[in-house]
C-alpha cells in the first residue's frame, strides 16, 4: 500500500481522477466529491484554482479518449446537482477485437510513417494502448522499409482536432472550376487516398469528400458541436467512394518502354486502364509525363489535359 505523501505529479492526478470516476456509482460524482478525493485538487488554495485545474484535466481526459459525461440530477442539493461520470463504452474494447503479432507490426509501420510529424504522437500513444492487449515480438522483414507520410497542409491539424472534439468547422473550398465557397461541416475522418489527404465530412445532410489541397482558407473551429453521424452512415459514404472510383476508368496509350510505361506498369498492348478518384488530380499525374501519354478515354479527361497545356503556355508566354 502506498500513501501520497509527496505532491502528485500531473500524470498521477489524471490517473487518480480516472480511477475515482471509474469507481463512482451510476449516479456519478459531484465536483465536491472529486475535489475531496483527488489530492492535487484538495491541496489547491482557492476554489478558482481547483476549478481551473479540473477544467484542464477534463479536456486532457477527453483528448485521450476518456469520455467524461456531465448530467444534472435533481436528487442532490443544488451545489452537487451536476454529476460527472465516465461514459459507458469508453473502456469497452469490442469483444471481437484481436490483435496478432502481424497486425501489430503493420500498426507499428503505420505509426512510423508519421515520422515525427503532426499525428506521430497520437499514433505512438495509440500503439502503447494497443500493446496492452498482448505481447508481441518485433519484426525483421519490415525493418528496412521506411514509409513516410507527408501531411504538410495547414488545414490538417485543426481538422484532426475538430474530429477529436466533434466540433463544427468552417473553411473556404475552391473547386477545380475556380469557384470557391464557404463550407460549414462536421469533420468525420481524414484519409489518405491516391497520395492526397481527403476529409470525409457532413455538410448539411450529406456526407461528402473534400480534398485538403482545395481548402484555401484557414480552418475555423466553431464552439458548436457537429452533427451526429452514425457509423453506418460513414460506412455507406466510404462504400460509395469505392464504387465511384471503381467506375472511373481511364484508357491511356503509353509510349512503350518510356518512363510512363514503367510508372503505370505497361504491357505489350501499349494501352493501359487505370482507376482514379479525382479527374483533375489524375490529369496532373498524367501531365508530368508530357508527350509519353495520350488519353483515349474519357473525353473529359483528355479535354482537361488539353486545356491544362494551354494554361501552361499562357502562364509561360
Amino acid at each position, binding site marked *: *500500500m*502506498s500513501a501520497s505523501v509527496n505532491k*502528485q505529479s*500531473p*500524470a498521477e492526478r489524471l*490517473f*487518480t481522477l*480516472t*480511477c475515482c470516476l471509474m*469507481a463512482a456509482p451510476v449516479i456519478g460524482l459531484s465536483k465536491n466529491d472529486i475535489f475531496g*478525493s483527488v*489530492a492535487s485538487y484538495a491541496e489547491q488554495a482557492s476554489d478558482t484554482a481547483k476549478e481551473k485545474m479540473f477544467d484542464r484535466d477534463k479536456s486532457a481526459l477527453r*483528448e*485521450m*479518449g476518456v469520455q467524461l459525461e456531465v448530467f444534472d440530477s435533481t436528487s442532490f442539493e443544488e451545489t452537487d446537482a451536476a454529476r460527472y461520470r465516465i461514459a459507458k463504452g469508453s*473502456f469497452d474494447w469490442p469483444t471481437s477485437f484481436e*490483435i496478432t503479432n502481424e497486425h501489430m507490426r503493420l*500498426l507499428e509501420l*503505420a*505509426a512510423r510513417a*508519421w515520422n515525427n510529424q503532426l499525428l506521430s504522437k*497520437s*499514433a*505512438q*500513444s*495509440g500503439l*502503447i*494502448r494497443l*500493446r*496492452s492487449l498482448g*505481447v*508481441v515480438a518485433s519484426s525483421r522483414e519490415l525493418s*528496412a*522499409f*521506411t*514509409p*513516410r*507520410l*507527408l501531411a504538410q497542409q495547414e488545414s490538417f491539424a485543426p481538422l484532426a482536432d475538430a474530429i*477529436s472534439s466533434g466540433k463544427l468547422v468552417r473553411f473556404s473550398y*475552391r473547386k477545380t472550376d475556380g469557384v470557391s465557397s464557404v463550407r460549414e461541416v462536421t469533420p468525420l475522418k*481524414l*484519409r489518405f*487516398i491516391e497520395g492526397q489527404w481527403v476529409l470525409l465530412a457532413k455538410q448539411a445532410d450529406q456526407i461528402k469528400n473534400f480534398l485538403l489541397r*482545395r481548402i484555401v482558407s484557414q480552418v475555423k473551429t466553431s464552439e458548436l458541436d457537429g452533427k451526429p453521424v452514425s457509423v453506418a452512415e460513414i460506412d455507406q459514404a*466510404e*462504400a460509395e*467512394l469505392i464504387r465511384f472510383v471503381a467506375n472511373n476508368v481511364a484508357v491511356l496509350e503509353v509510349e512503350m518502354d518510356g*518512363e510512363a510505361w514503367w*510508372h503505370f*506498369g505497361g504491357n505489350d498492348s501499349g494501352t493501359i486502364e487505370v482507376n482514379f478518384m479525382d479527374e483533375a488530380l489524375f490529369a*496532373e499525374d498524367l501531365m*508530368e509525363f*508530357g*508527350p509519353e501519354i495520350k488519353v483515349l478515354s474519357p473525353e473529359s479527361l483528355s479535354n482537361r489535359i488539353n*486545356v*491544362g*497545356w494551354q494554361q*501552361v503556355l499562357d502562364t509561360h*508566354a
Partner: protein
Amino acid sequence: MPKQEIDAEDLFNLSLSIVGLVLKDGPMLSKDLAEHFGFSEKTIVRAVKTIANSEDIGRHETHFYVDEDLLEKGEVDFSAGMAALRRPPILSKRQTTALAAGLDFLAALPQFVGNTALSEIRSQIGSGTTPITALAPPERQATLQIIQRALLEKTQLVASYVNQLGEKSERIIDPLRVDFVGRRHYLRGWCNSNQAVRSFRLDRITNVENTDKPISQAAQRADIPLEVFGQLENEITVEIQATQEASEIFWNFPAFDIQRDAEGNIIGKIQVGNLRALGRHVSRYAGQVRVLSPSSAVATVRQFALNAISGPSAPEDQD
C-alpha cells in the same frame, strides 16, 4: 530505441496500458515491460509508481496495491484494490485517425496487395478493408521483393536506371533502405559509380538483379540523409508562384524565401539540379504554378508544354 523522456499525458497513457497488460497477463519484469512498450526501465518504474500512488483521499481507499519490494528488484506486480479500472480506454479519435491514415497509406503500397492481416486490422481500426486506389501498379511488387531480399542479405544490386532527363545507365547499388515518401518509392543506396548515397525512384528502375555479392564497406559506414532529394550539385535557383492548391510543389525541392501575396498565392525560390527536369514538375499544375525567373526556366517549361501538345520535334512558336 527506448525514449528517455515522456510528458504527463504519455505517462498517464503508459500507466493505463501497464494496468491492462499486468492485470491480463500477470506479473512481469520491468525490463520486459520496457522492451514491450518501447520506453526505458526508468520510465516504466515512474509509470508503475503513478499507479501505486493513486488513492481516493476522501474515502481513504487505494486503487491498486503495488508490491514495492518486488518493484525494487525489477518486477512489476500489483492487484486492484478499489479500482474498477481493468484496461486502458479504447483508442481516442485522434489516435484512430493517426493509425487509420497510416494503414490506408500502407494499403495503397504494392508490397501489401492482398495482405490479409492488413485487411483484418483495417476493418478493426476504422478505414474499411478495401484500398481505394493503388499508389503504384502491382508489377512494382516484383522489383520491391528483389530489393527487400538484397536489403536483408546485405547484397549488391545491379540496376538499369533512367534518370529524370531520360538518360539510361547501369548502376551497381548497395541498398541501404527503401523509403516511401509522399507518393513514391525510393531506393536509398550507395551508388558505386558516384561513391555516394543516392536516391533512386523505383518507377525509374527498369530492371534490377541481386548480384549476391556483399555490399561494400563504404556503404556500411554511410549515413542516409533524411530528405530524399539529398545534396544538389550546381543547383539553379528558380523563382516560382503557386496557388494555394498547388503549394505542395514547394515540398518537393529545397525551398526558401517563401511569402504569400494578397491573393493568397505563394511565391518563393526553389533549387533544382537541372532545368530540363523543371518542365514536368511545373506543367503538371496546369498553369497553377508559374515560373517567374530566370527566363531560361520559363522557356524550359514552355517547351515542355509544346512538346506535350505536338510531339518532341515541335518548334517554338514564332509569336
